């Protein structure tokens, strides 16, 4: 206080002293120089770094998105959409880097002894961007907007909910039909973002024209396929952001994003291809690498010959040189997969069999199964060539991975023909078991490692099941499918981490023994950030950057 009073005296003295314009300016600059540090210190608070105080409050961070959001209310969602719109919203619970749940809009949460009722206590000091209060009725509304919409991406997350009670404005009781031990994680997931009931009901299907949440930034403007603008929410229930705003530039081409990063018209770059890491570092940007819950694998179709045959699946698993692929194609930004759970996962188990590259063993397995090498180097049995339909797509580097897999399979006498499809068609073909595909490189991620015993959709009934197991007519495979689904159901009904780990081991072992999938690797998320962006927060295992506390040291 004393210093700022002194500064005011200096300014007044400077202004009152007669003299030339240059002398006035010199005195004014001197006065500003003396006055600014304490003034900015008062404005920004004593807790912020000294460098930040010098740099000043405000500025706008510009981040990329490779596509326009698929939805603003997250009833459809993907990582690109979440990366573009998350600044608007808060969830009931949050999770730290180690996935420990912590309060967000709910301050406490508890579960009844029977595991069927969750009680959430809410913050009372939160308002939506439209000025309406956040309360229990709003939480009920937000659960029900998923429960009444089977097309919502989060309907499955909350399907177990029977009803939601609101005994008072700050208490919500979620009553389940069946035990779902993952439910607290669903309260921390994207399905638990809180939209303003008032605005959502008023705008209806026009919600995208002005989305309203409780988050650190408010919606300002959206030009489809061009950009989105957010401004600081000065009424934010936590400390309001330092930045004035945040801009999302929609840039579908990664090369263009790289150019923008180089020109400093982008402050961050998501999903950097490993081959570009050195280039990004040369631009002076920092690269954050984080292990992501998820797995990359060769998806094998157990309903189609010849991958319906265990010997063929086992040979494929031993014919693929994952070490070489990780080293040369991924530049080491991945770890070799054992059985679908990454080494950092609670469900990783070193006792489960790891299948290694062994072309000799692959050849032996095929020989024993009657697949003998033909004159053209391709194996045959009863006059039938060992040939696979290798489904591929033009998406990212997937075509390259499939071509490398094709060449490695050829080395052990397995022929394959690639059919490359556009991404949407590929996904339909893969999921709906069309065109008789046998194998394809695939990748799946999970939001939380804590809920994913195999880090991808291994359950037979899962929407994106990775091996078509539920559709098999082979009695042996059908039994296996029932066994796996039973384990999946038990996992959901089991809150005890140790028991869940045992169940995970059972599922992983069944997958490996029956070689339902060839686990390749667990990739890392690579994010580039300009060196002047400070105090950002790597969220969701590095897949999204939080800018609530960020500031620009420019």
């Amino acid at each position, binding site marked *: 206080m004393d210093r700022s009073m002194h500064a005011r005296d200096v300014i007044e003295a400077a202004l009152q002293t007669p003299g030339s314009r240059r002398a006035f300016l010199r005195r004014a600059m001197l006065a500003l120089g003396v006055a600014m540090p304490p003034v900015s210190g008062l404005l920004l608070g004593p807790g912020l770094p000294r460098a930040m105080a010098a740099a000043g409050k405000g500025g706008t961070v510009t981040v990329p998105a490779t596509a326009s959001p698929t939805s603003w209310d997250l009833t459809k969602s993907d990582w690109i959409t979440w990366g573009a719109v998350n600044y608007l919203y808060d969830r009931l619970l949050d999770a730290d880097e180690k996935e420990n749940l912590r309060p967000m809009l709910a301050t406490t949460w508890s579960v009844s002894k029977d595991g069927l009722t969750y009680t959430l206590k809410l913050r009372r000091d939160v308002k939506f961007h439209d000025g309406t209060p956040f309360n229990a009725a709003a939480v009920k509304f937000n659960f029900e907007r998923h429960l009444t919409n089977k097309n919502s991406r989060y309907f499955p997350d909350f399907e177990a909910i029977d009803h939601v009670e609101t005994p008072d404005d700050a208490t919500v009781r979620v009553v389940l039909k069946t035990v779902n031990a993952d439910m607290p994680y669903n309260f921390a997931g994207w399905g638990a973002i809180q939209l303003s009931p008032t605005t959502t009901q008023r705008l209806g299907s026009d919600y995208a024209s002005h989305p309203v949440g409780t988050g650190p930034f408010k919606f300002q403007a959206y030009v489809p396929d061009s950009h989105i603008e957010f401004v600081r929410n000065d009424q934010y229930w936590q400390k309001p952001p330092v930045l004035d705003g945040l801009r999302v530039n929609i840039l579908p081409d990664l090369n263009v994003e790289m150019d923008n990063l180089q020109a400093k018209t982008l402050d961050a770059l998501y999903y950097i*291809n490993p081959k570009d890491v050195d*280039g990004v570092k040369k631009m002076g940007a920092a690269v954050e690498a984080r292990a992501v819950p998820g797995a990359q694998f060769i998806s094998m179709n157990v309903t189609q010959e010849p991958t319906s045959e265990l010997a063929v699946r086992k040979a494929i698993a031993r014919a693929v040189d994952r070490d070489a692929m990780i080293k040369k194609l991924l530049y080491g930004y991945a770890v070799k997969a054992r059985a679908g759970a990454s080494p950092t996962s609670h469900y990783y188990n070193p006792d489960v069999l790891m299948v290694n590259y062994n072309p000799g063993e692959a050849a032996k397995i095929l020989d024993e199964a009657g697949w003998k090498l033909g004159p053209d180097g391709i194996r045959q049995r009863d006059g039938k060539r060992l040939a696979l339909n290798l489904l591929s797509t*033009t998406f990212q580097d997937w*075509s*390259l991975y*499939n*071509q490398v897999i*094709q060449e490695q399979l050829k080395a052990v006498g397995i022929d394959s023909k*690639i*059919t490359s499809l556009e991404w949407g068609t590929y996904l339909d073909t893969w999921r709906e078991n069309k065109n008789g595909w046998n194998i394809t490189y695939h990748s799946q991620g999970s939001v939380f490692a804590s809920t994913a015993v195999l880090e991808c959709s291994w359950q037979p009934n899962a929407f994106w099941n990775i091996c078509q197991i539920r559709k098999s007519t082979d009695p042996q495979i059908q039994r296996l499918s029932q066994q796996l689904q039973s384990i999946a159901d038990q996992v959901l009904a089991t809150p005890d981490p140790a028991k869940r780990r045992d169940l995970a081991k059972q599922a992983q072992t069944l997958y490996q023994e029956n070689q339902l999938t060839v686990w390749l690797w667990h990739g890392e998320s690579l994010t580039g950030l300009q060196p002047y962006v400070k105090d950002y927060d790597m969220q969701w295992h590095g897949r999204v950057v939080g800018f609530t506390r960020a500031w620009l040291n420019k």
Partner: protein
Amino acid sequence: MIRSRVNRDRSPTAAGASLRVQRAGHGSTALRRRLWREFVRNRLAFVGALYLAVILAVAALAPAVAPYAPNKQDLISRLDPPSAEHWLGTDEAGRDELSRLVYGARVSLSIAVMGTVGGVVLGTALGLGAGFFGGELDNLTMRVVDVMYAFPGILLAILIVAVIGPSLFNLVIALTVFSTPTLARIVRASVLSLKPREFIEAARAIGATRPRIVFRHLVPNTLAPIIVHATLSVAGALLTAAALGFLGVGVQPPTAEWGAMLSAGQEYMRNASYLVTFPGLLIFVTVLSVNLVGDALRDALDPYLR
């Protein structure tokens, strides 16, 4: 672009070219002499023709010319820059870029030529039928052609490949459909201009059958505009095939094709710019050469331009 150019600008003169052939009767020696003179006079066309001859020879002799098998991978040598071992470097899977370009010439040129030949055959048949028989058949054929014109060529090709699936054969079908409408219109226009002429009337008067009139008198006299347009169509088809390959709906990996190679290389533009430079350059120079040759052919065959 080439298709519309041909359609709007060349058709009248191409029809004129047919007159010239008719006047010359069956003087193919004179025609050859005129073509030779044109190519000697037009140096650029001569260079273009020479380049095309070389690239065709390279494509035909690919197994002898290419230093490596086109799909042979070597991950250790991935993205190696041009060197004594790999003259044009290696691609994202460690395959020799030069060998893939050589084999890619086979695929790209075959697709373009086969697509154009398909278009010539189908377009000529439709144009002859419509022009010669006239009436409802003419009306129906031309309306179908109008509908085909309503779609931009590349979109039509994408649509066809999307419906029947991506493969080399389907790509040829798409390019055939792509190049048919213009040919049909050119041939119809030529036939309509030839039909009332005296030599056709004379043939009718001496009792020549319809097939004889069509194949002995009409077809030879429409050949000049067909040749000119077909040559220029090859350039268009080459570009379209490359565009479809670039969009990922052309030939399937790992088959080497210039457009697909350009597309794959685009991802590595910052790390290995040669992966886009060489296929891009080949597409550019080949299309330019075909156009130069086509222009020279038109100059030689079109009486209005002499």
